[in-house]
């Protein structure tokens, strides 16, 4: 492969410097994005491995594959790894890092060194989490509920709590960087109303990260204080209040769901217009709905606590507020769908993921209506119905969006195209595997199977077997893209600067982009998604 072509190759962010130092000390947002990509992929497969073990244990009603304590650690570590080390950083730290500066016509983020710092914090937190796992793990569930976590379990609560605490700062710094960058670094002419919706989604996400994450940090510090110093904060035996913990925890952890899903919505809002060759339907509504979700998202936390022992009337208030947050989500779904109307639609891989996202997010959102409904929630909360619901949002929604985005921007990131037919095949596998894994869990939940059960009554077995079967299919669907992305880095077709004929400044620079993104600062004179002015790409690329 090493031919004369390399010597004449254009300089870009990947080949400007070589060597481990040039990566570990880089302040280039694109290289940091790749550092994140590698690290979150690592954690994704660790979390996925735990998930497979959980599903294997649940293949039979008896607890026979692992011990009860091991099982409890498995679902705890699965949750912590997937949420704090994969989903929360996923799109913002990888695609957001890579694209936010480029989409607004900036050379880099506002604070490039802080950006690198946030990756190091993530790595430190990750090492702490790995250390916690190999020295015994933790069994509190990712929710750390007190007084179990502070006064009863003898597993590694402090290590896990501090790890999440550090990871939180990584997330805060990323959010801070995005907010400042979006406010201060936009290219001339890139007004707020011309921002890509991906940027709006990241702006809303960053605000949640900035305002919510500190509350989680405080809560975890209090947990550690109670456990180490014996202060009575959450433990009623020492004069504390266990419900206070739940209020504090969910004040972050409910909005955290929007940290995971909003960026995916941003991705879908880029993909659907591109492969419909149309301006997004109702730009303003889609942009403002992101902000509305971020704001309302902070007002609904106690819907996780309808049976926890809160008062009748506060439950009613939180129920009604939860329905309000569903409205902006509904607007988004309708507007994406309407964008295709009278468009010129092609079924590219990213578009298939966007379809998958809309479908699974719709089902996740609609089952959210069940859970926000007090009378139903009493029966289904803490059952597999909840497990299915949040996996539809966080895996069906967030991960579908992440994969769609990775396919959409892979040519920009790597300068290569992935094999299109394999991409479509993987998207289909993911969609089928996902539904087979999680749809049966809705029924299991309504039948009354509680979550976090190591063994279960035999009558629940059939649905559990279906779910486990689905999870193996899903695993194949997740491994495939990793394989062909790696393959394409060497053997994929060379991508030009805009293989999809997409709007957006990131497509007006070379693939892969030069270190400072643009040869000269662009000046924006057009509205976002001006697909009437951009020629569609050659047929072969998309339809093959």
């Amino acid at each position, binding site marked *: 492969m090493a031919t004369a072509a390399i010597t004449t190759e254009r300089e870009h962010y990947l080949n400007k410097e070589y060597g481990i130092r040039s990566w570990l000390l880089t302040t280039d947002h694109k290289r940091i994005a790749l550092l994140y990509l590698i690290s979150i992929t690592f954690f994704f497969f660790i979390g996925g491995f735990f998930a497979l073990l959980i599903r294997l244990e649940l293949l039979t009603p008896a607890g026979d594959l692992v011990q009860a304590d091991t099982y409890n650690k498995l679902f705890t570590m699965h949750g912590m790894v997937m949420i704090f080390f994969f989903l929360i950083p996923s799109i913002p730290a990888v695609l957001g890092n890579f694209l936010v500066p480029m989409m607004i016509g900036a050379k880099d983020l506002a604070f490039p060194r802080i950006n690198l710092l946030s990756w190091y914090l993530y790595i430190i937190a990750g090492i702490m989490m790995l250390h916690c796992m190999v020295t015994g793990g933790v069994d509190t569930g990712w929710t750390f*509920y007190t007084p179990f976590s502070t006064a009863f379990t003898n597993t590694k609560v402090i290590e896990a709590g501090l790890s999440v605490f550090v990871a939180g700062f990584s997330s805060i710094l990323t959010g801070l960087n995005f907010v400042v960058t979006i406010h201060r670094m936009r290219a001339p002419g890139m007004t707020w109303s011309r921002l890509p919706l991906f940027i709006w989604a990241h702006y809303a996400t960053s605000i949640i990260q900035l305002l919510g994450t500190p509350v989680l940090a405080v809560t975890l510090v209090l947990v550690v204080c109670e456990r180490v110093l014996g202060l009575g904060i959450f433990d009623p035996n020492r004069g504390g209040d266990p419900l206070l913990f739940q209020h504090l925890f969910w004040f972050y952890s409910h909005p955290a769901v929007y940290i995971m899903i909003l960026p995916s919505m941003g991705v879908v809002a880029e993909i659907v217009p591109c492969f419909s060759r149309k301006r997004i339907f109702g730009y*303003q509504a889609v942009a403002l709905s992101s902000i509305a979700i971020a704001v309302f998202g902070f007002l609904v936390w106690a819907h996780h606590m309808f049976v926890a*022992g809160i008062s009748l009337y506060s439950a009613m208030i939180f129920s009604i507020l939860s*329905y309000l947050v569903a409205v902006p989500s509904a607007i988004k*779904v309708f507007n994406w769908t309407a964008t295709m109307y009278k468009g010129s*639609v092609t079924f590219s891989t990213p578009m298939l993921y966007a379809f998958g996202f809309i479908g699974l997010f719709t089902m996740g959102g*609609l089952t959210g209506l069940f859970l926000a409904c007090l009378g139903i929630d*009493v029966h289904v909360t803490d059952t597999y119905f909840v497990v299915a619901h949040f996996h539809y949002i966080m895996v069906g929604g967030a991960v579908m969006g992440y994969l769609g985005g990775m396919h959409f921007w892979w040519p920009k990131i790597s300068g290569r195209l992935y094999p299109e037919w394999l991409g479509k095949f993987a998207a289909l596998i993911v969609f089928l595997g996902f539904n087979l894994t999680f749809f049966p869990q809705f029924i299991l939940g309504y039948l*009354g199977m509680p979550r976090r059960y190591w063994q279960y009554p035999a009558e629940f077995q059939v649905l559990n077997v279906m779910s486990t079967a689905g999870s193996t299919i899903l695993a194949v669907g997740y491994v495939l893209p990793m394989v062909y992305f790696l393959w394409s880095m060497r053997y994929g077709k060379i991508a030009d600067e805009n293989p999809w004929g997409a709007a957006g400044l990131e497509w007006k620079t070379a693939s892969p982009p030069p270190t400072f993104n643009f040869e000269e600062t662009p000046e924006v004179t057009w509205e976002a998604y001006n697909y009437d002015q951009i020629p569609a790409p050659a047929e072969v690329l998309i339809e093959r």
Partner: protein
Amino acid sequence: MFDNFPLWPARASTGAGNVDALYIFLVLLASFMSLAIFTMITVFALKYHRRHGREAEQIEGSHALEITWSVVPLAIFMTIFAWGAVIYFQERTPPRGATEVYVVAKQWMWKLEHPEGQREINELHVPVGRDVKLIMTSQDVIHSFYIPAFRIKQDVLPGRYTTQWFRATKPGVYHLFCAEYCGSQHSGMIGQVVVMEPAKYEAWLAGGTTSGSLASNGESIFQQLGCSTCHRSDTQGRGPNLAGVFGKPVQLEDGRIVVADENYLRESITSPSAKVVSGFKPIMPVFQGLVSEEQLNALVAYVKSLNPASAGAQQQGPKE
């Protein structure tokens, strides 16, 4: 048809049917909405599939449409909210005169005590057609008392009482699950609810050996701990007279007025200085850690039995 592949658990309480009705409505609504979205996507994707000689038509959007698909869902959501809130309100408001069964949760078992003094572990026997109120507390971590066949669930917390109620309608044996993760043997913290015909239930009740009713046990604990030296049945005691206190508003020393519910009685035993009754001094010793959860329950049941109004329902067991 659903015998081999059920979609919901047995329906064995007065509330279960209401929950299922709302659930089925929501399933239909969600199916309709998903289908509508999936159909739109499919139709648009096929009908407007890329073709030579046809360009996409640029459409800015439509506020009228956007308002429609915000307001219509909102109206539907509010209907669901109201329906669910009504059911929740019923679920959370025990009828007067319900039989009160005390539940103590601990890692990893359920201990139950009937007003007549019968004790059970991981089993709850109840007759068909009677309102049963569960007054629950935990000895250690948070648990959750969940009976799928009744569609009810309530977390059980250490240091306080939570309650829920049901009226069973169908004899049978149903699952009792702990639904809040509580440590190693969480999935082993299960049991069964046995719903019986009233006559069989009476036989079961008579068959057990008890050392007196819960309230009478409470009375002897009340004497043993010396409570009666201050809480006298006249107005001369150093503590308030407890007769008729339960369920009534109480004027506190700091001016607040609280209702003397089960949690108030409980707190007044475990940490008496938290809410001192107006006109009395905070001289009562703290009983936190000195009385077990079962003794606390008996004491609370005893104080409640001093109520002329509800004593009948408390003491006499089943009323016809």
